[in-house]
């Protein structure tokens, strides 16, 4: 029996720029316990609802997270629109779906780069991020911002994305699909990569259900659950299958994310071919009164938005359950009994967004 030692991991660590601190209790090279602590970047964004106009709050919601910016803005707008009984136009629904999928692509490609960086494949990391740049360019052309889009508003979109611009995205998507195929092949077939991913952080389907995981982390363990199937925005008109993997390890999670990028491309193609013409904004009158809970599938998993309004300009309460928050218990579970060298991979595998979790 060797003696135990405690190694601090984070909040500043080269593998991920996220402020999470973990106390890793080690026995030789093996982690026996991991104690997470967060709270380094709490900004109190939820309490801002009592000081900001409910329309101004869209900007705050979008800035909860840089990567899933669109998802947060969408969740907030959707909840407020439900309270005020606003029915956005069909074109808005389709454009929101297209932008949501583009942001899912950019988030997943970013994750693949971070993963490649975590297992030490610098070349693959740079190649994935080179491809991501094309997605960001499309988003910038459509919305005016590369990361924070500021296009969402209660009642629709603040600017229209013209049809010819949407058509011009199609060849770019073909390019991305072709280039990503090479990278995905490397991620899933390369023996060196597989030796770092296969069998690391195994969680059975029963375990992920009990731990309350969500998103690609859940689907990587073979559970078929995706909030997009609830049919918000234009997802009910779009034909897509939930991608799952029965590997139940980090390889399975990589598989799910890789194929979700390709699926997003297919969804965008479908949506572009179906997008109807019309207005993108409906007039909003009065102030919200009531409460609503919205569930939506962000790139990292299911997010819940709860909004309570009291009939004035200011909302009474907003609450966000972010996907990373749901995945942290599973992270501590997978860290128990793993090798010290696998810790970065396991942490990156949940696609952590700690700033998002703390708000």
């Amino acid at each position: 029996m060797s003696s135990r030692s405690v190694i601090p991991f984070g909040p500043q660590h080269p593998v991920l720029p996220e402020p999470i601190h973990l106390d890793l209790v080690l026995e030789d090279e093996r982690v026996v316990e991991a104690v997470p602590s967060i709270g380094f970047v709490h900004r109190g964004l939820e309490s801002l609802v009592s000081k900001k106009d409910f329309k101004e709050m869209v900007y705050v919601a979008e800035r909860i997270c840089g990567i899933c910016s669109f998802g947060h803005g969408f969740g907030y707008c959707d909840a407020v629109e439900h309270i005020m009984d606003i029915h956005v136009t069909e074109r808005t629904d389709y454009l929101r779906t297209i932008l949501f999928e583009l942001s899912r692509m950019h988030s997943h490609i970013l994750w693949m780069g971070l993963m490649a960086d975590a297992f030490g494949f610098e070349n693959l990391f740079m190649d994935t991020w080179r491809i991501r740049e094309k997605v960001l360019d499309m988003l910038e052309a459509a919305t005016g911002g590369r990361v924070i889009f500021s296009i969402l508003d209660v009642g629709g979109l603040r600017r229209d994305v013209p049809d010819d611009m949407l058509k011009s995205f199609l060849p770019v998507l073909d390019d991305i699909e072709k280039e990503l195929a090479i990278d995905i092949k490397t991620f899933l077939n390369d023996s060196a990569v597989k030796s770092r991913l296969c069998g690391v952080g195994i969680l059975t389907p029963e375990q992920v259900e009990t731990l309350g995981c969500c998103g690609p982390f859940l689907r990587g363990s073979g559970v078929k659950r995706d909030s997009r199937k609830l049919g918000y925005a234009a997802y009910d008109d779009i034909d897509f299958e939930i991608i799952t993997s029965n590997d139940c390890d980090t390889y399975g999670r990589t598989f799910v994310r890789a194929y979700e990028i390709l699926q997003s491309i297919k969804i965008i193609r479908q949506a572009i071919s179906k997008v109807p013409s019309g207005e993108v904004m409906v007039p909003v009158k009065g102030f919200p009164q009531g409460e609503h809970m919205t569930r939506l599938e962000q790139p990292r998993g299911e997010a819940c938005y709860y909004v309570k309004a009291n009939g004035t300009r200011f909302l009474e309460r907003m609450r966000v359950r972010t996907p990373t928050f749901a995945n942290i218990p599973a992270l501590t579970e997978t860290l128990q009994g793993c090798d010290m060298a696998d810790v970065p991979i396991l942490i990156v595998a949940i696609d952590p967004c700690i700033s998002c979790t703390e708000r």
Partner: protein
Amino acid sequence: MNNVNFVGQALKNLFSKPATLNYPFEKREFPEGTRGHVENDMDVCILCGLCQMKCPTGAITVDKKAQTWAIRPFSCIQCRCCVDNCPKKSLSMDKMYQEPGPEKTERVLDLSDKQKEVLAAQAKAAAEKAAAAKAAMEAKKKAEAAAAAGGAGNPS
């Protein structure tokens, strides 16, 4: 061989042009509608103060007395809210990103001389109109009072 999947791509990267721009010799071309930073055309601005009211971060200050329009660029979040709400379309979004700096300064823009004259003339006209309206109102009141006095005097 499984582990040579990426070699082709790596070799291609080695002999192809860099994916990045050779900044500052090559400048990036921004797409139409990029939100870089806010500019104000001081020949058109009427200092109405709508932008100040609508700015979600309170970055804009409009001083009607000193006839200046000021923005704190480090508080601005480039949301384009002020530009969308400007009644005279004097505000616009420049494509170039906000310049970084060592201090969180405020950029103060003075109203152009031409616009100052226009605004002064407008204010003068408005004042004259108000004075005329006031005079008309007083005259009307006086007439009403006289009529009331006359009316009250008749039956007695």
